[in-house]
């Protein structure tokens, strides 16, 4: 096999491959870490409707499920802390996660996703308490009142 200008061509190919694969070997030097987004978690609440690992992966499915149940099936409550809590993005989720900027947005921006929840739903300006249903007493109160009542019982 005869190859004209083989030296130049092979040299060129090597340069091309080196440049083309640059992202891979630059990353392999270990300077590539983008770092996880720093999220602000609620300080005075520790329990969510599901555990945080599940929520990280599936909260969007949960919200879709809540949306359909509330709007289309008129089912308003889901199990929480031995009773039932109102299913509402702005009332229930954002009653604890009250900083959209430092919780929702930081992660969504990091992952470059733009959920359209906020096209219509309004970020709460003062925390609106979700309703909480005590399933034993069949009593519906505001969440804060039910927590206070539980503390008094103890």
């Amino acid at each position, binding site marked *: 096999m005869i190859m004209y200008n083989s030296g130049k061509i092979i040299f060129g190919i090597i340069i091309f491959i080196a440049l083309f694969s640059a992202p891979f070997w630059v990353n392999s030097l270990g300077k590539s870490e983008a770092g996880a987004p720093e999220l602000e978690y609620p300080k005075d609440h520790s329990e969510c409707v599901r555990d945080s690992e599940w929520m990280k992966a599936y909260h969007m499915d949960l919200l879709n499920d809540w949306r359909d149940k509330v709007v289309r099936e008129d*089912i308003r409550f889901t199990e929480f802390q031995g009773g039932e809590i109102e299913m509402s993005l702005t009332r229930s989720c954002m009653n604890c996660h009250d900083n959209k900027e430092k919780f929702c947005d930081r992660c969504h921006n990091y992952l470059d996703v733009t959920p359209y929840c906020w096209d219509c739903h*309004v970020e*709460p300006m*003062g925390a609106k308490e979700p309703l909480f249903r005590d399933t034993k007493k069949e009593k519906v109160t505001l969440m804060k009142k039910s927590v206070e009542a539980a503390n008094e019982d103890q």
Partner: protein
Amino acid sequence: MKINRRKFLAITGAAAATGLAGKGAADAVDSVKKKSRPQKRWGMVVDMRKCEKENGCTKCIDACHEYHNVPDIDNQKHEIKWIWKENFHNAFIEQENNMLPEKFHHHPVLLLCNHCDNPPCTNVCPTQATWRRDSDGIVMMDWHRCIGCRYCVAACPYGSRSFNFFDPKPHIEDIQDDFPTRSKGVVEKCSFCEERLSRGGWPACVEACSAGALVFGDLDDPDSEIRQVLKENFTIRRKPELGTQPEVYYIV
């Protein structure tokens, strides 16, 4: 592989058992249960005798439009309205009365979605974004699903539905955080405040009316206030000849 009868039965039996167990587990995981609640049929009586005494009052309209983030758009072609005023001869075209008492020329009628028993708007919706809720008769809207085809706007004989030709947010004076706004390309209308009813409240317009001109209640309950009012007064409805069975009654 050769399979004999015994093996076949064992495999199918095991498969069926796993399937059933899986379904049981899925049911248990699904923590949201449907609560049965008594059947209702919400309706409203608008007492124009009381309403027209408060000349020029817009408390109900203001309360509704503020609570629901309804934009205030000057252009009549683009306006959004849930509850509004209209001249009597426009609101009750079928009355065709040339000799109307004087007062009907001066006092507009309060109009809103009639939450018909037989709503023409829901039948035409291609995405089931609007439907009549069987449990209480409210004609519901799911703005998540509305694709803005406006069939329902054309089908509604009462003009109760408005279309967002553009993003309404810049036209809302003071956005309330307890209720979502809408986006461009979505139809909206009065919902009888179903979100307030679900929390044990009353519609915003009814609460705001200080003249007691708006009576709201369960039409299926013979002891309710609204049934008493309907029993004692002659009422008319808009375009009853269409067979839509509107649930908003007027005392004129």
